[in-house]
């Protein structure tokens, strides 16, 4: 059985596979492709998502990009 770690996604505690990166997290949990991701209060450029592997207790904020006003 693969190892799991606990993270927080939009405030909710969640178990994910160890070694999961931000891009994989987005593919698993965001139905909308047009999202931004903040990891521990830093918004990560999309290009960096595959390089950022999640660590236990990471705080992730995933939010939809919008253009209204």
């Amino acid at each position, binding site marked *: 059985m693969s190892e799991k770690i606990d993270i927080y996604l939009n405030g909710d505690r969640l178990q994910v596979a160890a070694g999961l990166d931000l891009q994989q997290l987005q593919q698993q949990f965001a139905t909308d492709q047009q999202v931004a991701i*903040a990891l521990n209060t*830093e*918004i990560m*450029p999309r290009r960096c998502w595959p390089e950022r592997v999640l660590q236990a207790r990471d705080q992730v*904020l995933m939010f*939809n990009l919008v253009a209204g006003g």
Partner: protein
Amino acid sequence: MVINLTTLEKSSTSANHSAPTALQSPLPDQQFLYYSRQLLLPDWSEQRQLQLQQKKVLIVGMGGLGCPAATYLAGAGVGWLLLADGDKVELSNLPRQTLFRVSDVGANKAQAAAATLQQLNPFIRIDALPVILDEAELARRIAWADLVLDCSDNLATKLAINRICQQQQRCWLGASASGYQGYSWLINPASGGCLAKGGCLECLGHQQPLPGGCLQQGVYTPLVGQLGLQLASMALQQLANGRRRRSFVHIYQHHQQQFSQCQLLADPQCECCGVTADV
């Protein structure tokens, strides 16, 4: 109640503050009364009020974000507001675009807002640009302003402001909302010294077509109000001390009814800011 302006004791409140430098000219009595609650704040002063009167702010978009932002900047005493919007007031705007009334339906938003705001504060200058600004005109107006607020409702305008402010190395503020999603931002292209490099709107991910907008997804009425007020508050802080802040985003989380502040990291390969970010 009739207020006798001639009997107003200015020293009763100004004595609470220590002005950083000698006043060039005191506020006229009526203005002192108008701004009196603000002047009572511990970090405010007549000097600061007079400095704010010298500031020019461009607000692009007078919808759900622009109306509250402009209202509070006018009330605070920003000396010159330039309101840009080519749209007309519609009935569906009224619930959240609080500067307009039923009688304004069909009128240009920038002109209708300017007229209302001038009634709110007759001591400042308010001009309307009742057109959709092309990029050249936008660049000219941004260069004129001390600060730019993007309150527009479309991606093309937001990206144009982002690009121009990057070219001009100008700090700017903006916000975006649709449905229950929304966020505001401060983007500061300046870098160097002890200030870490921050990202721009394209680093956030705004370089691709985004879904819908309020026309398709609706919008949570109090959210645009809150975002507009955030912009006004951030603008006053920025105008007052011009602090060089790293780019950040305030993200609204509807379920928690709260905002989270996150730093906006620069994408080294960003087509907009990646080339100049290291300069």
